[in-house]
């Protein structure tokens, strides 16, 4: 008869935590911070098709590090939950806090019940009317939730990156400054002999939740617009059509009427407000 070895619950939890931590620390990092015009996501990502940063709802974005299949599963769940609640109640009733809670429940259940925890760390960000109203939630592999103070780093050597962010980040920064602070923080780790690296534009995934927009606020920054921001030109993000066009809601008072963004509904040819 096979002997079952005894392992204490503490030991099991410690082993699972260690597995998840190692998995998350192996990957590349992501940074989320709020700036004057909204919330900025910057992730190191060699793939342009498999996203680490994406849209959940009108004012809510998602960033993740760790195993792609695991956080992609959570992202889809989040989109479904947000769309279902937005349809049953109202678009305004979909909040980042509710989503963060749901993710925490799911991650917590997986951590205690499954034989292997999810090796992921997630940020749910909701853009508010001012930088002080922005909400950033950090969710870890064991289901714990933390409300972050306007900036956070996760994955890879997150602690070192957080240190740099903390000393450089201000909530009243412009988009250009915010991108540079984020990229500079990411590049302080992983260089040879502790020196800073250079991260090229094509290794970055950058997106924002734009505070000024009505309706869907999520927008990716790619190509020439991103290069310009990295080069420190203070040029505003190009008026190029966003990759995933975000779209139509009517006036701010009637968010239910449709899903859309104000700037696409502006008269063609007129500058964005």
């Amino acid at each position, binding site marked *: 008869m096979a002997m079952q070895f005894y392992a204490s619950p503490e030991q099991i939890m410690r082993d699972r935590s260690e597995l998840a931590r190692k998995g998350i620390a192996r990957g590349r990092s992501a940074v989320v911070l709020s700036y004057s015009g909204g919330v900025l996501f910057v992730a190191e990502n060699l793939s342009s098709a498999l996203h680490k940063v994406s849209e959940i709802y009108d004012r809510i974005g998602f960033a993740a590090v760790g195993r792609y299949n695991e956080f992609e599963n959570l992202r889809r*769940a989040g989109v*479904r939950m947000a769309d279902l609640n937005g349809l*049953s109640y109202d678009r305004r009733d979909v909040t980042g806090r509710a989503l963060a809670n749901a993710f925490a429940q799911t991650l917590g259940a997986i951590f205690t019940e499954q034989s292997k925890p999810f090796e992921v760390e997630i940020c749910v960000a909701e853009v508010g009317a001012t930088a002080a109203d922005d909400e950033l939630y950090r969710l870890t592999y064991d289901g714990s939730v933390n409300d972050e103070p306007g900036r956070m780093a996760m994955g890879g050597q997150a602690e070192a990156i957080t240190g740099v962010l903390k000393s450089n980040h201000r909530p009243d920064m412009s988009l250009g400054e915010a991108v540079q602070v984020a990229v500079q923080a990411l590049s302080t780790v992983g260089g040879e002999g502790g020196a800073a690296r250079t991260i090229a534009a094509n290794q970055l995934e950058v997106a924002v939740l734009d505070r000024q927009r009505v309706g869907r606020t999520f927008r990716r920054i790619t190509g020439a617009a991103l290069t310009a921001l990295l080069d420190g030109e203070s040029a505003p993000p190009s008026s190029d059509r966003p990759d995933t066009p975000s779209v*139509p809601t009517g006036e701010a008072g009637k968010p239910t009427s449709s899903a859309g963004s104000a700037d696409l*509904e502006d008269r063609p040819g007129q500058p964005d407000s």
Partner: protein
Amino acid sequence: MFTNAGTSSFTTFLSRVAPEMLPGRRPLPPGMAADLAPHATTIVAIAAADGVVMAGDRRATMGNLIAQRDIEKVHPADAYSLVGIAGTAGIGIELMRLFQVELEHYEKIEGAMLSLDGKANRLASMIRGNLGAAMQGLAVVPLFAGFDLAAADPARAGRIFSFDVTGGPYEETGYDAIGSGSLFAKSALKKRYRVGLSVEDATRLAVEALYDAADDDTATGGPDLTRRIYPVVMTATAEGTYRLTDAETATIAEGVVAGRMENPGG
């Protein structure tokens, strides 16, 4: 229930977890129910040189009564397409909201928009789901139009799709109208439509066609100058969807009415 890898379609997801939220899945008592709820009436769509225009009157009727004077029946379906509803207003609005979420949901899950034909086919299958209710008089027939980002010929990027109650999607050439006044609106458009119209001319033409529909159909409302209620006019072009402001539609509608003062036949 949310974590199942499953599908990119929101309606398929709903049919699994909350089927009661789909309009076609509700049990109805037997018998005709056509006079139960307000009916939305005429919608017209016109393909222009660089996009498409859709306009709808503002009237909803219940039998011989006007149920609402300022109902909005033309809405953006997503960034580049428009949907207008005729038939039972409550179910139509529900179907339209569901369709908007369906398109947005696919876009978010897959990271890319559906093709224009894909959107039309999704809408067709949603109408098909309502067939049971339609046979009891609660029919909804939408009109769908959009700017096709994948069109080879930019002059043919504005496309229009109509549907029957069984869900059949039919692509229309040039223009189309649905609802109780559609017969008169289409007759007006038949005489006035020209290939290669500008979007501005097409908006005026759409309001003219609605005027003609209101002229001969009691269920279609004309421009209401006393209450300042004008048709909803929307465009879909390469720049995205745009709803003409109240001031812009007022200018067009007043121009049309002034023209009819001189020549009632238009």
